[in-house]
């Protein structure tokens, strides 16, 4: 369970986030959706303590994000941002191995190695594990980053637009991996998504953010309606019955 109480953040002169009050239930995938600049990524980075807030409190599984030691939080929550560029040349396995740092402080034990192997296998990177990241395709690289945060074995996983720059096939693949991580590994996954239909299809909960506030929170069935989506996205949206569930049509 992640609880946000009266969270506010302002930066620059005009951008303001909050006040946000939100409870994200344990388990499953929660998708943050909303128009550009609504504050989805900012909310996510604040939950992941990459950015401080001006007011309010965030609790993850009962631990206050602002006051809990960062090294303890690293065993509870992991976050992956969109842009990941490293100055060193790392292999997939070395990268994933960094996910063990909160436990091993860099001295990998056999248990760590096993966990790393499992994370790599889980994301189907077994054959690529000794490839360097710059030798991978965009989809493979994105999977390697996700493997790293899964390898951190945190109950809560935050992903900022993991489908960015992925084509249709890799986007679907990525969402299936995340779904499996939620169901098979019991992780609570919070993910910023751009495409409302991906959220409708794969998420268990959808949280709609607009102008720095949470305007809707509910199951896809509740959110995927003409009225709600039109209001959230400020554009005419029609929800129709697709072969695999509701589909938002907005063009």
């Amino acid at each position, binding site marked *: 369970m992640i609880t946000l109480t009266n969270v506010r953040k302002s930066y620059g002169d005009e951008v303001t986030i909050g006040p946000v009050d939100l409870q994200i239930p344990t388990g499953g995938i929660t998708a943050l959706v909303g128009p550009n600049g609504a504050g989805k990524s900012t909310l996510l*980075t604040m939950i*992941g303590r*990459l950015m*401080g807030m001006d007011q309010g409190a965030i609790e993850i*599984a009962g631990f206050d994000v602002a006051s809990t*030691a*960062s*090294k*303890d*939080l*690293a*065993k*509870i929550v*992991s*976050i*992956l*941002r969109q842009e*990941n*560029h*490293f*100055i060193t*040349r*790392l292999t997939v*396995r*070395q990268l*994933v*191995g*960094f*996910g063990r*740092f*909160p*436990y091993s402080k*860099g*001295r*990998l034990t056999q248990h*760590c*190695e096993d*966990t*790393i*192997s*499992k*994370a790599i*296998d*889980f994301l*189907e990177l*077994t*054959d690529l*594990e*000794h490839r360097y990241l710059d030798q991978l395709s965009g989809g493979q690289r994105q999977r390697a980053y996700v493997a790293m*945060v*899964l*390898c*951190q*074995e945190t*109950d809560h996983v935050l992903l900022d637009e993991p489908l960015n720059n992925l084509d249709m096939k890799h986007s679907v693949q990525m969402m299936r991996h995340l779904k*499996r991580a939620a169901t*098979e*590994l*019991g*992780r609570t996954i919070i993910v910023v998504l751009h495409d409302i239909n991906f959220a409708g299809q794969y998420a268990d909960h959808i949280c709609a953010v607009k102008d720095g506030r949470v305007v809707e929170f509910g199951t896809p069935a509740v959110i995927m309606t003409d009225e709600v989506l039109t209001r959230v996205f400020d554009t005419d949206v029609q929800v129709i019955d697709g072969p695999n569930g509701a589909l938002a049509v907005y063009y």
Partner: protein
Amino acid sequence: MAEATIARPAAERRTPPARRRTSGALPTPRARRRYWIVLAILIVLATGFAFGLLAWDNPLPVGSDGFWRIAQMRATSVLVMAIVAVCQATATVSFQTATNNRIITPSIMGFESLYIAIQTSAIYFLGVTGLVALTGLPQFVLQVAVMVGLSLLLYGWLLSGRYGNLQIMLLIGIIIGGGLGSISTFMQRLLTPSDFDVLTARLFGSVSNADPDYFPVAIPLCVVASVALWLRSRRLNVLTLGREATINLGLNHKSEIMKVLFLVSLLMATSTALVGPMTFLGFLVATLAYQFAGSADHRHIFPVAVLTGFVVLAGAYFIMKNVFYAQGVVSIIIELVGGSVFLFVILRKGRL
């Protein structure tokens, strides 16, 4: 929470690889072999050049009393080279990691401008006797303390607080260095040519600037700071992933950076106060070391970098002294090579 184990999907299961899977920085036996060979070659070269500097052109037979007496005198400069190599190599590698930028060198952060400003103003205000006033152990300690103190002020001011920003800190450091530089240049042009000649020797890094009297302070500083950085290798590895990944993995990014920069400033101040400015030596050494080591792990990079630094310095001195008879220009030659490598690297780079 940590017990949520990752199950292997049955459908995707592949034949497990025969060998044990490990994540070491040198994953394959080939990489391991390559690393140890590189290290061995560097050690051989380093001992070779060190012995060469001590024994070459020594008129007395190897092993005789007189031989050792001459060697002992030369040993001082070999020791200085070792100190400078350790300082510059360790500091530059750590600095590049902390700033997440592989085309930067800590020496442009104002250490050298400050050193030059101190030397220039000494001779400007006090004449040649001013430089004499700057020699001596207390003065050496004072110079190091001033450099470290000012850089700590800069880091503390610019990195802390809500708007802390590493890049702005770097740039401000460089600009302050530039401002000090223009003041020094002004004073230099008012010096009499003879005073200026005396100063010139101090403006270029040279092993002969070092005074063995400084060793009791310089060696412990160098050893303590570089060992401390070496012990932080694993944390430095995490820092290479950038701020966000570092925080995600549970490290306090800001305090890690501050600690690393403090140790770097100790090393840079020691090296600069000992031999003078060596702007691109660190850059050259670090760039070569990344290529040689073939590993992203600082525990592998540091030894290679230090050895490379020593080989470059000692090799340059040995060759310039015994082949070209021009050991006065060694540091400038190193600067030129380092500068060219810098140009080559930035033109090849795809991303900063």
